[in-house]
């Protein structure tokens, strides 16, 4: 049982090694659907972090009380309550964004990354590590979401950070950066096929980086001593 997982391990797992979006490929439905612009992606990313932190904390608190047979329904109930919370909060404070994200806010309930963390980590670990794991996993997911949103917004519309006022108030309306002037717009990047393309590119990039890191790791390792002999062993090795 990984009850004593160190925080450094949790961090590298959530952000890179076991990233919910790029490695586990969980929660692809919102990832593909609302990553058309940075503001949409950031909105849903923040909402997911909130739900993940709260649900991991709550699940970890009740982990010794709920019997194994009914744990999944209980987890789903907890996740659903926090999703309702964030939905009402967004309705109150970011109504326009709430309208744009639409069905994908209630759908946070079905994000397998959240239920997955609840069952795989929070149900077996104390409260504080669970809370931290939820935060880091959510952050890893949100970062990919925002990166994807930025790529698609840039290629699709030629600008970045448009409509940020939906999330940060009227002052953020000027944050929009026109990267290319007179850009004809590239609709494929904004529609769902573009999400698949760019997610594929991101995964490919991660794999390239991983391969490079591994190469460097192996190059650093000491070469085996020349002249070492093969050892013949009889019987089975226990």
């Amino acid at each position, binding site marked *: 049982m990984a009850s004593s997982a160190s925080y450094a391990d949790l961090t590298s797992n959530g952000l890179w090694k076991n990233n919910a979006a790029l490695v586990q490929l969980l929660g692809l439905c919102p990832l593909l659907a609302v990553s058309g612009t940075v503001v949409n992606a950031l909105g849903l990313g923040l909402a997911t972090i909130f739900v993940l932190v709260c649900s991991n904390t709550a699940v970890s608190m009740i982990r010794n009380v709920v019997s194994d047979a009914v744990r999944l329904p209980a987890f789903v109930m907890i996740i659903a309550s926090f999703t309702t919370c964030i939905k009402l909060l967004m309705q109150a404070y970011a109504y326009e964004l709430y309208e744009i994200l639409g069905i994908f806010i209630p759908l946070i309930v079905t994000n397998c990354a959240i239920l997955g963390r609840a069952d795989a980590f929070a149900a077996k670990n104390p409260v504080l590590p669970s809370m931290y794991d939820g935060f880091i996993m959510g952050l890893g997911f949100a970062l990919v979401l925002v990166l994807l949103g930025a790529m698609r917004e840039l290629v699709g519309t030629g600008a970045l950070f448009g409509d940020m006022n939906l999330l940060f108030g009227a002052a953020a309306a000027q944050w929009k950066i026109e990267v290319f002037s007179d850009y*004809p*717009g*590239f*609709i*494929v990047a904004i*529609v769902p096929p573009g999400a698949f*393309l760019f997610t594929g590119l991101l995964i490919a990039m991660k794999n390239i980086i991983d391969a490079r890191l591994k190469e460097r790791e192996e190059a650093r390792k000491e070469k085996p001593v020349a002249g070492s002999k093969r050892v013949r062993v009889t019987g089975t090795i226990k």
Partner: protein
Amino acid sequence: MALLHVTSPHMSRAGDTGSVMRHVLLALIPGIVVMTALFGWGTIVNIIWACLLALGMEAMVMRLRKRPPMFYLRDCSALVTAVLLAVALPPYAPWWLVVVGIGFSILVAKHLYGGMGYNPFNPAMVGYVVLLISFPVEMTQWAAPAGSIPDQAPTLGPLSALAASFPFLSSTPVDAFTMATPLDVFKQNDSLMVDELFASSPQFGRFGGYGWEWVNIAFLLGGAYLLYKRIFTWHAPISMLAALALMALIFNDSGSSASGGSPAFHLFTGATMLGAFFIVTDPVSSAVSNIGRLYYGAGIGVLIYLIRSFGNYPDAVAFAVLLMNFAAPLIDHYTQPRTYGHKDHKSHNEDRGPK
């Protein structure tokens, strides 16, 4: 007398990829000539620009993948993709439209899937569909065919065609005459009988679109040449044309304002013949067996008619081909031919045992 010492197989060589692709390029020439006569030099500019881009990108990918570039460039498959896409694009298309289209065809649809022979979708059609979805305005600006409008200026020559596609090359902006395509007009019409529509709109000729009839006949000739050379079998193209004609016959209703158009109209307008003989016959992305190709072609023919008549896009060859590319593995699964020495493919599979 010396005896010939020739061992089996006694079959003539079918030709390598390069010679097949060069035959295809040769067969495209009549269609290109007719298009140039009708629309001016825009088609040629498209083709040359697309070929340069395709060769450049192919060579670049081959360097990245550490393969010998010249070996792969010599098989001409990139050139065929480039020419097919260039012919499908509107003449005088802006230069960046071709860049994006070829980029998607060669880089995404072909090489990201593993290169020549591994692409599940026809690269040229992927490029075309990406462009059609992304840039609907630029993609539907077709030049008016020469002679369709009475007092029309002559079509653009080579230099002005170049300036129309690359506006930064010349100081004075060049504009080509554009008009809606026959399929567009036919689709928009809901008040005129078909005969009246043909008489009143400059877009229509004898039985198909004005000028488009000749484009289609020219591509049909090229296709017949390839068929004669046995570059491909007749199954897929003929089945596609038959299915399209049959669908048109069913929904023709003798030319009322709600008519879907006569079989001749559908066969000789738009990209029908180009699609039938140069796109549907793509050996990589189509079904494999002869019987499978019959189903594959028929599916494309039916889809073309459905999308043309009931869909949002006036011409449908690209969408229909891509949809049937999806279906090709399924068709192959159910039309596996009998293996020599086995009763049918079921017993053949049983011999292999469960896996």
